[in-house]
């Protein structure tokens, strides 16, 4: 018999018992629909994760830090521990904030690590073969920035990250552009949630080019401040606070420089980036960030009355109003928040951190700056902070990542790789896929029993017809194939309709899944039923139908033609 004849005969007999065929197919449709939806969801999420990693180059990135408990892409506000390594790339790829232990975790331990992340180490890493770039990341709180202002809106300043825009970090831009090497100062990237807070939800492009004001606290002497020769009278927070019913004025702190006014520093928003990991973060060029954070110091101050302070010898970290924040990016709100008293300006503790000697309680007269101001050397700032927080190393080939990471490990620092994280994410998705797919398979197995039952009934019903076909010259193999083909057709149509219904379901559910359920995190995931999935599901159901038909078909083929012809 020709293949086309098998087809025609099988369809004819399926058509003959429409209801039964329809019911049997329905059972397969249920299983195939479930399988399609589940597999589509899992593969879409997986490919989205992979795409994120690949498109941002994270699969070729190695995060280097001193921290032995290093996480790749750990969120900046995730841990209270000292110097958790925040992912410097604003574009964090994995949607669920996964935390895989890096390859360097557990090696040696942080306590024994004495290597600092400094320029010499950066150079060493850059010299390793296959390394295409090393970006140093310096992560600090807002410090002297009291709040962000956009028009009349004021936003809490949470997290400030500086990085060298050398092309290593490619944030997932929602709008605008990344920082460039030519961006020395005056430009920032905002995370999406900041933009949302400013009322630019889903209109991020409109925010690009707008000016954001970084409003400093009083006494600010960083970049953009006017540095006078005569210091205005310092704040008198302590005295104010001691009066009955009096509260310290917001942001009040005292110290020699506290009389200096706050400054509004304009910054152009050049881009908005996804905020999947680092929430409420402002990204800015590293050198500018250091300039904003690390204040100019007067060489010497001469007070009209009794005090003479040698400012040049003062230990920097203890400056009044100068938050000692290095290495504590996880507590970015400690200082400089509008409406909150500054740590160092608390009543009863005036001049607590004074590095300028002890001016003592009571109002100070105006001081004169002697010998001008010195601005800290960024390199010194970094050195004082104990080095960079992390390096982000880019490797030319994915298959070299592990080797390079091992080489960096031998330099005495710890590493975590994006590839490792990616594989982690992928295997997570695979596990979910296996579970969901397993459920679909169970449904299909039950449907297979239905097919078997249908075919057994069909053979019984058509016993006489089988006898006639045998008399007319059909071989056993012809009969067997005919029934197997029929069963496979049930599976095929079940699978086909199942995929169609599943596809329709995916189309209908796409907006819901993409936006509501995952709160926009998977908005970029491409939820579509891929061709291989169609082939897989239809092929699987066809194979299941075929397998279910084998036994009944064998029975049909083994019928004695004489007996079959006599069957009533």
């Amino acid at each position, binding site marked *: *018999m*020709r293949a*086309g*004849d098998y087809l025609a*005969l099988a369809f*004819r007999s399926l058509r*003959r018992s429409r209801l039964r065929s329809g019911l049997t197919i329905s059972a397969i449709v249920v299983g195939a629909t479930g399988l399609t939806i589940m597999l589509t969801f899992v593969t879409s999420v997986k490919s989205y994760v992979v795409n994120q990693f690949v498109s941002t180059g994270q699969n070729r990135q190695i995060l280097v830090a001193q921290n032995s408990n290093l996480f790749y892409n750990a969120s900046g506000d995730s841990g209270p521990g000292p110097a958790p390594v925040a992912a410097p790339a604003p574009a964090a790829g994995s949607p669920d904030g996964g935390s895989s232990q890096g390859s360097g975790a557990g090696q040696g331990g942080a306590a024994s690590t004495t290597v600092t992340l400094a320029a010499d180490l950066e150079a060493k890493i850059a010299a390793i073969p296959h390394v295409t770039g090393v970006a140093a990341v310096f992560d600090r709180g807002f410090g002297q920035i009291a709040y962000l202002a956009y028009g009349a809106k004021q936003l809490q300043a949470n997290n400030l990250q500086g990085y060298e825009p050398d092309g290593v970090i490619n944030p997932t831009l929602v709008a605008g552009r990344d920082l460039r090497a030519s961006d020395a100062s005056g430009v920032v990237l905002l995370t999406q949630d900041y933009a949302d807070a400013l009322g630019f939800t889903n209109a991020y492009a409109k925010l690009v080019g707008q000016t954001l004001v970084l409003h400093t606290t009083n006494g600010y002497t960083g970049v953009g401040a006017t540095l006078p020769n005569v210091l205005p009278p310092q704040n008198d927070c302590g005295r104010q606070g001691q009066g009955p019913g009096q509260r310290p004025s917001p942001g009040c702190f005292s110290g020699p420089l506290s009389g200096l006014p706050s400054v509004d520093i304009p910054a152009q928003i050049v881009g908005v980036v996804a905020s999947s990991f680092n929430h409420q973060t402002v990204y800015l060029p590293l050198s500018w960030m250091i300039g904003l954070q690390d204040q100019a110091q007067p060489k010497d101050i001469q007070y009209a009355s009794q005090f003479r302070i040698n400012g040049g010898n003062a230990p920097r970290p203890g400056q009044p109003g100068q938050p000692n924040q290095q290495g504590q990016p996880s507590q970015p709100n400690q200082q400089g928040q509008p409406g909150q008293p500054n740590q160092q300006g608390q009543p009863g503790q005036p001049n607590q951190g004074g590095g300028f000697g002890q001016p003592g309680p009571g109002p100070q007269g105006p001081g004169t700056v002697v010998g001008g101001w010195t601005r800290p050397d960024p390199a010194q700032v970094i050195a004082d902070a104990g080095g960079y927080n992390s390096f982000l190393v880019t490797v030319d080939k994915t298959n070299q990542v592990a080797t390079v990471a091992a080489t960096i490990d031998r330099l005495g620092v710890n590493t975590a790789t994006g590839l490792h994280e990616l594989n982690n994410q992928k295997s997570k998705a695979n596990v979910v896929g296996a579970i969901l797919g397993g459920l679909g398979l169970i449904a299909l197995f039950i449907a297979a029993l239905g097919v078997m039952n249908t075919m057994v009934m069909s053979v019984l019903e058509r016993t*006489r*017809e089988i*006898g*006639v*076909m*045998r*008399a*007319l*010259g*059909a*071989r*056993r*193999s*012809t009969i067997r194939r005919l029934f197997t083909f029929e069963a496979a057709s049930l599976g095929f149509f079940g699978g086909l309709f199942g995929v169609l219904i599943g596809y329709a379901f995916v189309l209908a559910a796409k907006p819901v899944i993409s936006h509501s359920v995952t709160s926009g995190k998977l908005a970029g995931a491409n939820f579509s039923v891929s061709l291989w999935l169609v082939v897989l599901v239809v092929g699987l159901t066809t194979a299941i139908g075929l397998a279910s038909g084998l036994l009944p078909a064998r029975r049909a083929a083994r019928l004695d*033609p*004489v007996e079959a*012809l006599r069957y009533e």
Partner: protein
Amino acid sequence: MARTSLPYPVPDVSVTDLTVKADRPIAVELTNVTRKYQLGDEQFYALKGVTLSIGTGEFVAVMGPSGSGKSTLANIIGGLDRANEGEVVVDGDPLARMSDAELSRFRNEKVGFVFQAFNLKADSTALENVMLPLVFARMRPNERKARAAECLERVGLGQRLNRLSSQLSGGERQRVAIARALAMRPSLIIADEPTGNLDSARGEEVIAMLADLNHDGMTLLMITHDLGIGRRAQRIVEVLDGAVHDGART
């Protein structure tokens, strides 16, 4: 002999001479054929040492009471059933040594079956029913259509090719069955009580049609209860308790 119990006269033949000689080229030759069934502990012989020859182009009527083994004889000759012992040679083919595939091919190419109950596919047209053996023979679709139409034309159903067989009358259905038996141009037609489900007028048409085919040279083996029909055969072979009693040629 139990022959006296038959409702019709049976020509007297010697009990010892059970070998039937045909006076023309042999189409069917059975030698010592036994077909037995195991029923529990007992063996039941449907055919017991049957030896029979049928010449090419002969019209043989097989008669005998129900359960005598007529159908078993026909099925063995037609390759639907296998003998337990003895030789069966049809048109030169030794059926006993054939595989299932070979036997199926033999049935397809050399034998046309006509059944009492017509055994047509009810949901198929007359044309499709006639095409079925051609389908098994892997004939090209165009060719098989033409052939089936030609066969239906021959049985006078040229106007009803596309009628569903369920919409045809009994006589018409049996004519479709005859057309189907003819489709592969077999050398032997085995008709098992082809008029059993028809009234006498329709039955007469069918017999006339089969006789006509025989006249054209086709060997015809017809099982019948009807002596009137048996008389139109050239020879009556009587089967009784699994044994064959060859009748005289008419």
